[in-house]
């Protein structure tokens, strides 16, 4: 049986190094198979997160040969096996141990997003009516499996560490899903620029390229949000009208 070498990062928050492991390669294998095989036979304490093994839960995110990937969906047949396959944790988040990193920041960011608030029901029985076409636009965003690969690749987080001022592509996708939800009646535009930092995104589309769910993050989520936000805050006609209202003062009445 042919073999391959996996150069896996071992260590913790204090530091670490790559270690080489060899394992046999069988038909159809994915990187996660190799990692779990190494764990079972050679490195029992190798830390790695995984669940569904089918690209559905977004647990096994890592950087394979330097690219953010789901290990369970990365076939060995698409990698050059004559050289070691490097596997390391996502770089945009603090390391915990080996391939597991601390993604807790994402869960905190999520809590800050204003939740869904539906309009009053359309029918007397308390239900709503929505057209499939309107639903589909948002369903694209709701495919997100929260693997955080888009957060990992985004240079605003990865290189500039703007975790305090910028919520990252994953959460622009969530805001877009809420803002474009046919039933939603909440307004989230003010925070977008102020605390969520949408202005930091300069549309390099790295997030779209790494999304394992093929969500068109930049074009379908971020750009429309930017447009809405700019319309609200920088539209010259609106500004002029706002100025007029201000000038009119309290006496002009409604």
């Amino acid at each position, binding site marked *: 049986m042919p073999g391959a070498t996996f150069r896996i990062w071992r260590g913790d928050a204090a530091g670490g190094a790559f270690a080489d492991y060899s394992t046999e390669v069988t038909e159809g294998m994915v990187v996660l198979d190799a990692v779990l095989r190494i764990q079972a036979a050679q490195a029992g*304490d*190798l830390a790695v997160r995984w669940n569904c093994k089918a690209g559905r*839960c977004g*647990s096994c995110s890592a950087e394979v040969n330097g690219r953010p990937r789901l290990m369970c969906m990365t076939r060995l047949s698409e990698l050059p096996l004559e050289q070691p396959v490097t596997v390391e944790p996502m770089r945009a988040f603090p390391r915990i141990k080996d391939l597991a990193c601390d993604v807790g920041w994402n869960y905190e960011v999520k809590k800050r997003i204003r*939740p869904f608030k539906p309009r009053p029901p359309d029918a007397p029985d308390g239900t709503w*009516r929505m057209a499939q076409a309107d*639903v589909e636009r948002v369903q694209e965003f709701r495919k997100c*499996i929260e693997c955080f690969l888009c957060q990992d690749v985004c240079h605003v987080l990865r290189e500039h560490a703007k975790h305090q001022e910028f919520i990252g592509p994953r959460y622009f996708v969530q805001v877009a899903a809420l803002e474009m939800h046919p*039933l939603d009646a909440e307004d989230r535009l003010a925070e977008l620029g102020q605390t969520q930092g949408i202005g930091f995104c300069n549309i390099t589309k790295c997030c779209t390229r790494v999304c394992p769910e093929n969500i068109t993050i930049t074009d379908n989520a971020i750009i429309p949000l930017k447009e809405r936000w700019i319309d609200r805050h920088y539209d010259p006609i609106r500004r002029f009208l706002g100025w007029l209202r201000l000038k009119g003062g309290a006496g002009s009445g409604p």
Partner: protein
Amino acid sequence: MAEVQTHEHDVLIIGAGGAGLRAAIAASAAKVSVGLVCKSLLGKAHTVMAEGGIAAALANVDERDSWGVHFADTMRGGQYLNDWRMAEFHAKEAPACVRELEAWGALFDRTQDGRILQRNFGGHRYPRLAHVGDRTGLEMIRTLQDYGIHQGIDVHMERTVIALFTDADRIAGALAYDRERGFFHLFRAKAVVLATGGIGRAYRITSNSWEYTGDGLALAYEAGAELMDMEFVQFHPTGMVWPPSVQGILVTEGVRGEGGVLLNKNGRRFMFDDIPENYRAQTADNEEEGWRYTQGDRNARRPPDLLTRDHVARCIVREIKEGRGSPHGGVYLDIAWIRKRIPDAEERIKKKLPSMYHQFKQLADIDITREPMEVGPTTHYMMGGIRVDPETQMSTVPGLFAAGECAAGLHGANRLGGNSLSDLLVFGKRAGDFAARFARERTLGPLAADRIDAGVRRALEPFQPAAPEAEGPYAVQEELQAMMQDLVGIVRHEEEMRRAQEAIGKLKERAARVRVAGNRHFNPGWHTALDLPSLLTVSEAITRSALERQESRGAHFREDHPSKDPEAGRFNLIVRQDGAGSMRVERRPIPEMRPDLKKIVEENG
């Protein structure tokens, strides 16, 4: 006393899949403090893998549907071993639970007039499954998660509960370790809800992830609760079989709901060869009628490919055993054939089954719009579990509740597809409601320090210096899985199960000697070692129950007792610990069904 961090909650919920999240939301709506513990990160539980949909008699697509028909379908599917009271609650309350998800932001596929669309599924008389393509579980868990995180629930992620504590006659708390640092945590609680899901990791071929080691069942059993229906393990007929690394991964029944057909290597629709008597009247006897059913013809009967999962799985095993299987030991599941019937087939397959398209394309190099898939049975779901009160979901231990897959009762001998997601919602809510009510009427119970110390000591044993014949945890786990797969699988025989019983005894001894490398810091070897006792308890309960049920019914098939025994249809099997700590299996008569429900069953014959 060992070093443990203490947390206090009125209600502690263990497990954060659909049932756990729904229970947490219900309990926190009742204004009690709620802690939610889960083994993985939030939103990653197996619910995420559910594909087909949520069964609920909304009657949006076919107005003939009603809770009564759903009830009758569920009972027939479960071969009347179901707790009929649970089946009644489930059928009546599922529609409101689905609408509630919509009110929390879920976006289901729509009918022409803008209501929730419903699809056909095995064993359901009318199109009943509310769905989002083939990723309904993701929609459900994300909706519950995004709603739940704003309800003041304390979430403790990546913590595994290893013991429950009782005080005199009721639950008092739980001991857990956190995966990241290996620290111990004591949760004091007035009520505990178990929502730990399934047991799939007891088998080699499974659709379940590493998490599903039957923790909740083992914890409840150790705490003195009764388990029930443990012989009924659902082998989903269609798991992937090739390549080896993806073996067991689920292929949704939705493929057949959308017109996909099962074929043997000769291209024969073998499901027409064996239609069980109790389904004959409502099953199509020709391919044409079956096709019309999948395309929404209300006067057509459903094709035999959509018979209940237990039956379809056995038919597939038969084809494989008799040499009519596919090259990699499965059969064919073909959706590509619908190209011959409809012009936009490729579009439609990609739209209705996007995850399946993606999964096969990426993992098996198969384009399902052009080629058939190879599929075979995979361990998928545990019908049995913790015996609960149908109304409150409380186990036989006061204050200990259970909901979802780890609870028994709703599904009887076989679960219908789609009835799991609705189960999670209906009984997750009930468990949360009643756990909160229980907690409000009580104070925290005391916890004996020595028992906590003992729990911690036991958990740290794998780090002790190696005993003679010590081995790693992975080898023991793999051997158990292979053994259960071979000896207590889809087709069972007394002689094989006796061997399994013996093997479990030996594996228990080996598990006690397991040693792990490294330290407590995020150490999967250690975690695997601590999962072994639960897996062994569950495997023993399955094996003993399967030996005791000397007939074939639902998911339980005995080669040595191949027919159904009407007498055996009158009892459930109960598993509990006796005074000496040994496992006991006993028969418990099923209460007579209420006359009004009986009438509904008869009317829907």
